[in-house]
């Protein structure tokens, strides 16, 4: 067996989900006997069989990923309960193993996966989806870059029907539940435990208690901007429908006139209602530093 084959075989086994008692499976999910595979590659010693030696890596793999995923999606876990969350996390991480060198991106494909797999959130699919989207936006906004802000002197260069450029740390979410309030409440109840995102430490797993049961909030349409201030503080800012639609179009690179049109169409409102508030909205967004200078030619 050459190096490439050994690595492929070994990672294939390490990424197999654990048994309910957190051991290595006897058969892979596609039915191959794990002992036979492992015995060909790993040497036993006087205390551990080949199977037991690789099991250490198998366990550490899942403990590390589940722990990181749980830290990133504590709101989703609070909604679903620990057991259902862990089932969801294991299925997601097995189907879509990390393709990034950093654990930061573990949840990058969760929204799309949840839309395809509602069976993991049977009681509250939309609430769970909204919470996952909000928590991923929170992660994504945290370490985005910051570009030079648009100054008053730059406004004259934008033309009559301007296209605006925005900071990379703004995400818009159209939510069916007030998960912003819920997440803040959940976080207030949880002890903040700050750990490095990436570390070379091999960890043993801490078994999480079930925790407080959170009641499902009433449905409420919430239009939200997740953004950053002072370089590091993340805020959830609720927007009026007209402002949300306008901003969404502008973020997609539409010129102002088209963005206004989209806002009118989306809200079924009057154009006067939008143009009448433009000054106030732009002043607010500008004060938040959301606009940035156009990229250099």
């Amino acid at each position, binding site marked *: 067996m050459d190096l490439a084959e050994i690595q492929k075989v070994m990672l294939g086994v390490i990424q197999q989900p654990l048994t309910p008692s957190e051991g290595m499976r006897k058969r892979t999910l596609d039915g191959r006997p794990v002992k036979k595979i492992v015995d060909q590659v790993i040497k036993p010693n006087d205390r551990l069989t080949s199977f037991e030696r690789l099991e250490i890596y198998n366990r550490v793999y899942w403990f590390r990923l589940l722990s990181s995923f749980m830290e990133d999606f504590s709101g989703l876990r609070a909604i679903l309960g620990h057991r259902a969350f862990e089932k969801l996390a294991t299925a997601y991480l097995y189907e879509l193993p990390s393709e990034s060198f*950093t654990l930061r991106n573990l949840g990058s494909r969760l929204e799309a996966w949840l839309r395809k797999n509602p069976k993991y959130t049977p009681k509250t699919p939309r609430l769970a989806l909204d919470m996952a989207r909000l928590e991923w936006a929170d992660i994504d906004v945290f370490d985005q870059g910051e570009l030079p802000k648009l100054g008053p002197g730059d406004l004259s260069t934008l033309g009559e029907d301007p296209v605006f450029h925005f900071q990379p740390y703004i995400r818009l979410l159209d939510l069916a539940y007030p998960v912003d309030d819920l997440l803040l409440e959940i976080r207030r109840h949880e002890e903040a435990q700050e750990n490095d995102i990436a570390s070379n430490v091999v960890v043993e797993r801490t078994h999480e208690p079930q925790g407080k049961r959170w009641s499902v909030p009433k449905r409420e349409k919430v239009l939200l901007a997740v953004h950053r201030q002072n370089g590091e503080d993340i805020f959830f800012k609720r927007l009026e429908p007209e402002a949300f639609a306008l901003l969404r179009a502008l973020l997609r690179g539409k010129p102002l006139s088209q963005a206004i049109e989209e806002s009118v169409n989306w809200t079924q409102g009057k154009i006067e209602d939008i143009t009448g508030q433009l000054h106030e909205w732009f002043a607010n967004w500008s004060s938040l530093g959301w606009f940035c200078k156009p990229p250099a030619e």
Partner: protein
Amino acid sequence: MPANRFNGYTDYGVGIGLRIPHYNHILEKKPVVDWFEIISENFMIDGGRPLRVLDQILDQYRVVQHGVSMYFGSAQPLNREHLRRLKTLTKRTKTPWLTDHLCWGSVDGKYSHDLLPMPYTFEAARKTAQNIREVRDFLEIPIAVENVSSYAEFHVSEMTEWEFLNEVVERADCGMLLDVNNIYVSSQNHNFDPFDYVNSVDPERVAQIHIAGHSKFEKYILDTHDHPVLDPVWNLYARAIERAGPTATLLEWDDHIPSFDEVHQEALKAKKFIKNKAEEKPVNGNGLGRPYAHPDPPYAAEKARV
């Protein structure tokens, strides 16, 4: 040899890992620390708090980058996006040398986020050395590779771990980050004498040393970085310093992290060994455990305590 071409001819002393729970203490109290080691991957980002903190640290401290996912030992090509981001960070930190592990951890773009052990074969040594050379050529800074703790061995291995390490660093002409805690952990898991390891590596290639704590389980030892350094590891450290000379040393403490002062005080114990070496005093009688001479079979001694 405090300074050599593998650590950018620097003489950095004793540092500690920069960890989030200590950010406020460091920025507010500005403690005197020889240097900080950062986990590169935590800062290979575009903005936000991590980079703001890093910039404040860089204003006042020397920083060395340590990576956990370059995977020098991977049979497949290196991740170019990873390399590009890493190079951007090296320009920010001006790290005089860069370290990552003698391991692999991904296949076909799927990541384990672990430091998986190498089969000790000549094929693996050739491929690993080639990867290290590619990284060094791209980053244009000295590279040192770190030996990992391991819990498994391979049927195909053709040499010992230390022979493999020597083979790789000679082929790549790079330095080594000698982790004496990892040597100890692996020695217990694989029944070898850790002093054979330390005595066999080329001392002129040692760019840096890691020390850390570990945890004992019934049938193996795990590299957990959540304890003070244990005596057997200090003994190995003393021997490493005796062979390599006073060398940049870093205490890793990554889980159940105590106060900054506690971590720093633990790290500073290393200074006694460095000072003794510099003054060529015997290491005995320093209150840090047994002398470096290794009279007992290490595995037997540890097994009795399990």
